[in-house]
């Protein structure tokens, strides 16, 4: 199994972090992973994106041109990468930031108002985790347990409240992903 993922949005929204958590979780599961960010002046206020690959086999190209999964946190990201999603692939997006959405009918589209959901959970910092949960709910790229282990190791002592909110956010995302 090889899954190629692109996460894209405005610089500062944390799309690189989404990719990093997915790669980190994949590594925890013993998979081969790579994480390749866009870098440079385009990141300041412009679009930022990351290619992440999770695979059972050693990864040749870390560059993703036809993603199995696109996580889009703004409309320009859907406009740019939406047409490249592999037929049958998955698009996860934030309806609040992507007013036009995506008109493809040959892919699975999962969307939610991530800002509002994050506010309901009680921290804007968990917005990314809802998106990751949506990916976990719909695909087998990584397991919830790997995310839980990873977050627990970072946050258990430093910020147990944020840890709990993160886990709630992932579970909320998984519900949306399964629906």
């Amino acid at each position, binding site marked *: 199994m090889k899954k190629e993922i692109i996460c894209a949005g405005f610089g500062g929204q944390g799309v690189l972090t989404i990719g990093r958590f997915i790669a980190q979780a994949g590594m925890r599961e013993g998979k081969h*992973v790579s*994480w390749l960010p866009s*870098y440079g002046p385009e990141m300041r206020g412009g679009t930022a994106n990351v290619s992440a690959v999770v695979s059972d086999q050693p990864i*040749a190209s870390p560059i993703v*041109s036809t993603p199995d999964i696109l996580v889009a946190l703004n409309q320009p990201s859907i406009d740019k990468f939406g047409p490249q999603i592999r037929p049958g692939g998955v698009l996860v997006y934030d309806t609040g930031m992507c007013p036009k959405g995506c008109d493809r009918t040959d892919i699975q589209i999962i969307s939610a108002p991530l800002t509002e959901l994050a506010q309901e959970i009680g921290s804007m910092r968990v917005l990314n985790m809802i998106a990751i949960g949506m990916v976990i709910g719909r695909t087998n790229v990584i397991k919830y347990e790997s995310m839980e282990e990873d977050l627990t190791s970072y946050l258990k002592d430093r910020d147990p409240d944020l840890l709990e909110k993160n886990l709630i956010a992932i579970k909320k995302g998984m519900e949306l992903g399964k629906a």
Partner: protein
Amino acid sequence: MSKVLMKGNEAVAKAAINAGCRLYFAYPITPQSELIEYMAKMMPTVGGTFLQAESEVSAINMVYGAAGAGKRVMTTSSSPGISLKAEGMSYIAGAELPCVIINVQRGGPGLGDIQPAQGDYFQATKGGGHGDYHLIVLAPSSVQEFADMASEAFDLADKYRNPVMILADGMLGQMMEPVEFKPAVTEEEMEAMGHQHESWCIHPNQDGDLKHHHEINSLEIDPVVLEKHVNQLYEKYARIEANETRHELHNINDDNEMVVVAFGTASRIVRSAVDELNTEGRNIGLFRPITVWPYPYEELAKCIGPKVKQVYVFELNTGQMVEDVKLAVNGKVPVHFWGRVGGMVFTPEQIKEKLQACF
């Protein structure tokens, strides 16, 4: 030891410290700034010295001095900064001192841009600075290999008393992959390494013994003496060429209809395309030089099997390593080239298209 997810820039910095590097002098430049940041943070924690020089010229000359004292020392930069270090590299090679230089290449010429490129191949392998000299040049293609090359580079530098360059690129510097580190050298091992250098380096034990003091110098005003020195350097380079070539084969066999050659991260993109075509019924082999000086000419020549009709070279430049490939192939079959430049990186689909057009 378990694996950690790390950027190439940080992984090679950590690996260099593990290899006993305690002196690091550099000037920041994208896309290798995480490397200098890591060194700034970590060097003080191991009792080492991190110094941000006022320029690349200054940094390489600090390396010259520290290498003369027999210490494991490193500097790093990206393309325009490496050009500034070129004079110093020539001096260090002339004075026969061990050190490690990392080039995380970006688009050029001039200031160029900050995206990945391989346009410094000629500079790294054929010269860079003035005079007859060679660096040993290693070209990593993964974060793990980048990290592993840190200790290999220091060992080669010590073995031959010669500067060693790791020729990476912005993609490898910025990319994160799982990496496992070799155990750090112990204090005792570091001390032993230091003693090995006492026969030639400047060290405190020679105080008051001026008859046996060591000179570190690249100036030799007498042409008779300089000719002898340069010829000795070339005998050393011949030993390196005979003993230190490294390469990797992927699907090389007697039935190959084509052999593809690529180095560094570009080779991974090419490998994706080659694998896809092979699953579709082609038989294409991939040759990846790991040392680009010394170049594995003989090893590549052996890969041109009886059924190979052509060789294709892909680089992120306008065609530099292809000249070495042509030397190795020696007119046996046609050698094609395609590359992208300016920081643009080819995709597996584009490589596949180029290869398909050959059949």
